[in-house]
């Protein structure tokens, strides 16, 4: 997404981080109905009219089911069995259960490893590397590499999952064939987390690459020139000129890919959370409790916990974004 105009992602973060809003206060009259309430003369009521279709759709088809899910989270509701006929309110029992269940903590831990390894480090660094290294490249080379990276991003998840199943297959997978061992290592079983981390880096680097290449094009050439004239090494230039300039992009990028990766279901298609829950990230855990286990109440509670963790992550990022480097 947003492989257009990625710098656009920045002002939003900025707006919240500083509590300011993109619309300068100067365009707003003090609650007085006049000819000019805003730049286009939309007026508050018409603006509400514009917002309404979207908000109604979101309200009915997202917020309402979501709140319902949260409600289910305080019941013992199951998809089948007696509890499906007459669900009972069990209060915080589901939360107590989740918070005392080592499998829940394990899935949270695995998710953090997954997010940290594949998104925060993997996609971020590789995306930046591609964006940086491709700048001086010939347009043809640049387009080819970008197209490949993007392709990994836009193909449907079931297809890419199968591509990687084929890559990593124990008996005839490309990796084992290249390593000259058939049957070779059962990658998805022996190294399930490594497999899904590598997979997700492959899958999602495109977004970071796009965002960083947009960000890098915004670094003033004069600053780069200055650094070059001062005899700065590549590392120094990166640290002193480029990073300060793209810092906020990096934060926005990290926030978005963190949230997406946290809730990404695609690893399930590779390992189904296995073997023995060893790659059961939260999205897979919810699927396994809700669909395979039929425990709707419990999975509703888990969803709220996940929401809270996500909220926490988002707030941390916003806080970091607000603190300017000295």
């Amino acid at each position, binding site marked *: 997404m947003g492989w257009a105009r990625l710098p656009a992602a920045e002002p939003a973060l900025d707006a919240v981080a500083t509590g300011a809003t993109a619309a300068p206060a100067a365009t707003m009259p003090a609650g*007085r109905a006049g*000819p000019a*309430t805003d730049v286009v003369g939309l007026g508050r009521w018409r603006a509400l009219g514009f917002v309404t279709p979207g908000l109604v759709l979101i309200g009915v088809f997202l917020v309402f089911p979501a709140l319902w899910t949260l409600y289910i989270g305080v019941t013992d509701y199951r998809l089948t069995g007696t509890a499906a006929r007459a669900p009972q309110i069990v209060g915080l029992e589901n939360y107590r259960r989740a918070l005392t269940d080592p499998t829940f903590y394990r899935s949270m831990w695995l998710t953090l490893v997954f997010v940290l390894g594949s998104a925060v480090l993997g996609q971020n660094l590789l995306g930046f590397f591609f964006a940086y290294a491709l700048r001086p490249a010939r347009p043809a080379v640049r387009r080819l590499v970008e197209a490949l990276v993007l392709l990994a991003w836009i193909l449907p998840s079931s297809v890419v999952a199968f591509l990687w199943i084929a890559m990593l297959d124990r008996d005839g997978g490309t990796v084992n064939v290249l390593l000259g061992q058939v049957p070779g290592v059962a990658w998805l079983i022996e190294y399930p987390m490594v497999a899904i981390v590598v997979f997700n880096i492959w899958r999602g680097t495109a977004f970071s690459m796009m965002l960083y290449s947009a960000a890098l094009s915004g670094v003033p050439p004069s600053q780069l020139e200055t650094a070059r004239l001062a005899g700065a090494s590549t590392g120094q230039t990166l640290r002193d000129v480029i990073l300060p300039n793209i810092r906020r992009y990096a934060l926005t990028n990290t926030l978005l890919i963190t949230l997406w990766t946290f809730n990404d279901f695609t690893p399930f298609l590779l390992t189904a959370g296995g073997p023995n829950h060893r790659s059961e990230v939260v999205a897979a855990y919810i699927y396994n409790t809700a669909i395979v286990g039929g425990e709707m109440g419990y999975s509703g509670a888990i969803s709220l916990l996940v929401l809270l963790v996500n909220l926490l992550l988002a707030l941390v990022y916003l806080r970091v974004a607000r603190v300017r480097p000295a």
Partner: protein
Amino acid sequence: MADVELRALTKEFPGGVRALDTLDLTVADGEFFALLGPSGCGKTTLLRTIAGLEAPTSGQVRIGDRDVTGLVPGARDVAMVFQDYALFPHMTVLDNIAYPLKIKRQSRPERSGRARGVGANLGLAALMDRRPAALSGGQQQRVALARAVACHPSVFLFDEPLSNLDARLRLEARTFLKRLQRELAVTTIFVTHDQAEALALADRIAVMEAGRIRQVGTPREVFGRPANTFVANFIGSTPMNLLPGVVSGGGVAVAGGTLTPSTITPPTAPGERVIVGVRPEYVSLSTTPVDGALTGEVSIIEHLGAVSLVTVEADGALIGATVPEDREPVPGSRVWLSPAPGRVLIYRESDGELVT
């Protein structure tokens, strides 16, 4: 064609910032009028309020015989040129110029004929099919002007029309703009922070500060007799000398000397603290002692082309004077400064208003 009249116009933003403070102003029909002031003085807000892009908190805007205060911008019969020109990037030059006519529901051939005509007048004939992105800054400015001209408004509103051009182009555009306004004779209000631009273009200038108008007048009046120290400070390419002084006897004690009544109009109350204002252009410099002149040492010399600005330190005060380029004194040497007769202005120190 119409005059523009503002009555007790006040604009208060949420949070209590007063961008316009009970402002009264009349711009005559066909006048080229400049709103001049430092950034944040409310000049752009004033322009936008005239355009209808901002609603005044109280007061009235009249254009011609109409009270337009409650009208939407489109109904005010004004055309505005924005600082960034606001050329629609997805339209050709022709479509841009014709856009106001499209809104006025003119037929396609009619509006493109008219747009072409206006474009040709403004020297854009060869560019009509280009997109704005393919134009130079000067060309973009002309397109924006053409678009405003094409809709034949009774008032033009220009928001910093020249500030996005480089220095050389700006002079050209300035001349062009002035000629255009003369030809069309449409009431024009333009906002600028550049006093030279205002002096060069405008029939009359309103100098603004903090939501108020500090002086309205012709360029000559504003330059020659700034109504207060704010205007005095703001106008002129070299800053006016503003020296603290005390009225004593028949003269004013200033910078270690006394300016005698023969060279200045005497102030009203003896013993009053005043500020003496005199433009460097009106200070003559002598390397030999002159009677009744202020004396000091040359500290800095700045070359301004045909003239040089000499800064002299006289009894702790810095006084500027311009001299022809071939008459520069030696830095560090002692010189004598005498203001030209009738060019010394006395301001009250308490409120900075002109006394005489």
